[in-house]
């Protein structure tokens, strides 16, 4: 069973832990707007929405220059540093430096070199697939930054025809959301705590080296 603490206890816990400065994508949604948005999606569900937590999700953001024959272009790619999933983007999001409780920041688990390889092969694949060309573009990296995407964790109670309790994570930048399966620890594939800490430390160090240019 999960431990239950009151809201005041939770605040106390967060305020006593250390803070850390990160580069976060600038949120476009406030807590109030998020609650309103979810409630208006399904009025008949009669939802009570509470923002119970903020979570910062790490992405390694790459900017590349593409050269195909005489044509030049730019491409941006984000690699999810926890799950390792990559995505291309049309532009870079606005970012800001913020100081947040360390406990809300998700640790990176993906090797940054592997992330870079993924980003490059993803851009090449996306380019050749979209343009229907056989020639792969030449890629030159222009910048790479570790940025965090802010998510609100919402606790929702539906008092409509069907009474359902559920959790959502809400992307404070795009306004999209997805259900979370909270309540029972899904640790089927989790590593042991000590190994996990070592793994995270290793990735952190490598990440520092990649971002500072020590490791190319």
């Amino acid at each position, binding site marked *: 069973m*999960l*431990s*239950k*603490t*009151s*809201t005041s*206890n*939770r605040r106390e*816990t*967060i305020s006593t*832990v250390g803070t850390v400065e990160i580069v976060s994508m600038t949120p476009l949604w406030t807590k109030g707007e998020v609650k309103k948005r*979810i409630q208006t*999606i*399904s009025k*008949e*569900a009669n*939802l009570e929405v509470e923002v*119970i*937590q903020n*979570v910062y*999700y790490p992405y390694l953001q790459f900017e590349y220059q593409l050269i195909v024959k005489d044509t030049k272009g730019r491409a941006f790619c984000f690699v*999810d540093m*926890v*799950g390792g*999933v990559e*995505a291309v983007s049309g532009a870079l999001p606005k970012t800001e430096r913020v100081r947040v409780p360390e*406990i809300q920041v*998700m640790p990176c688990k993906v090797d940054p070199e592997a992330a870079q390889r993924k980003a490059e092969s993803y851009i090449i694949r996306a380019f050749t*697939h979209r343009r229907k060309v056989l020639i792969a573009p030449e890629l030159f990296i222009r910048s790479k930054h570790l940025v965090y995407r802010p*998510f609100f*964790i919402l*606790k*929702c109670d*539906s008092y*409509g025809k*069907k009474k*359902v309790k*559920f*959790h*959502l*994570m809400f*992307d404070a930048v*795009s306004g*999209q*959301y*997805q*259900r*979370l*399966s*909270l*309540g*029972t*620890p*899904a*640790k*089927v594939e*989790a590593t042991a705590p000590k190994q996990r800490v070592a793994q995270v430390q290793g990735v952190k160090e490598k990440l520092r080296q990649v971002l500072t240019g020590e490791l190319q």
Partner: protein
Amino acid sequence: MVSIAVVIIYMLVVLGIGIYVRRTGIAETGEGYLLGERRIGPCVTAFTHQSTSMSGYMFLGAGSMAYTTGIYSLWFGAGDVWGGPLDLSIVGRRLRRFTKLTGALTSIEFLEKRYPMPAVRWFGAIVCVLCMWLYVTAQAVAAGKGLGIVTGLPYTACVVIGLAVIVTYTFLGGYYAVAWTDFLQGCVMLIGIQAILWTAFAAVGGASGLVSGMTAKDPGLVGIWGPGNMYKGMWGLVIGAVLLWSIGYMGWPHVIVRNMAIDKASDLRPAVMWSWAYNCLFVISPYIVALCTIILIPGLVDPEMAIFETAHLLLPAVMFGIVMAAVMAAIMSTADSLLLQGASSFARDIYHRFINPKATEKRLVYVTRLAVAGMAIVTLILAITRPPAVFAAVVFVSDVLMAAFLPVVVAGLYWKRMNKYGALSSMVVGTIVAMVWTLADLAPVTGMSSGLMGIICSAVVLIVVSLVTPPPSREVVEALELATSLEPLPGEIEKKSEKTLAPEAKCVTAFINERVLEGAFAV
């Protein structure tokens, strides 16, 4: 010529679907190729579920059985009406959630996630691949016979053409193409069988004409125990017949994988309704048509041709073409699913799990495609050189799959105490009993069908072994609890949630659950 044109158009359309899906790029990832990115809606899920289960058997085997045993054959049809809805209701939701949570992409992979033991995967994959191969060979034989009637081409050429079409769209589009072609094929089957049903029914003078005509031929044909009361008192066979086509669906890997690919778990309820509607219109129809054939065309040399011959006798060329397309649809919709299931089991459950665990996703898709082609070549050789009887092969494979997998799938989703030792021993015993029972032809002697006997033995072993060995690990039980505890979200909230955030949601869930365990967060 007209009927040939209808069949050719139909084949070009299914090929077009395969090519279109290939161009969308959906089938280029592991989950995309094997499960259509889990984006299949309720109606298509119901249709692919039904058309996959109802193979060439429905037009050849069911026809043959009804033609030779009369009303007794309806026991099989009675079970079939329940098959799809039961599977979607009982297994669907839990299987969809468990496999999504654990990332399982094949039905055999689900077994290893639920019962973490390499031998479970090995044994399951080998039984699955072999059964799929024999099953798809029976479908290839049916395709050859069916196409031969329409085109007049030799059997060998027809098998080659039929398999070539199936392999092409399965190879190109993977599960997504298979599901959508199955949907189309399900529609064609429904139109075709209704056309021949009402024409044949009118030709014999309706229900009273049918009963009196059959009684005149042989009074045993209208009895529930078969001609000459040959199955009298054999309740074991009757229960086996009903079970085979009703709960049996829950043990067939190529059918339960349909539950894993549905868009949302909440879509399963409408899928059940679609499945019911389809079955009410389709399932009994081939049996009734073949009963009419007893009166219309007595003394058929090959009873498996009962429905073909009736259609040929009664329908105009265009309608005959549609019926033939329906027959081909029934065969192809099952064969494509079998090919894909066999190939994905080989690629994911054997190659990726035991031979090359470091294989990339791209390589996995490549190996699956190669396996589709390889399996088709071996099937072709067997279908040409040693063609099995369609009905016997389908019943044999169905029995073995049911006995091997049904108890472990259902108990795995509903019984937390069920463990890996129980699962492995249940699968081994179920497979052996069903095979021995069929090969030694023990059913007529004992009055118990091989499927029923296999399930009973498999279930008993499963319970006993699970209870005398240690319970499953906490992680497995937690995953199962999580899969069964999630309630569907209110309609619009579910619909508007963003699927592309699913990978992040999985990681955030694990992160928050860890924080909760540490006492840092409360949810």
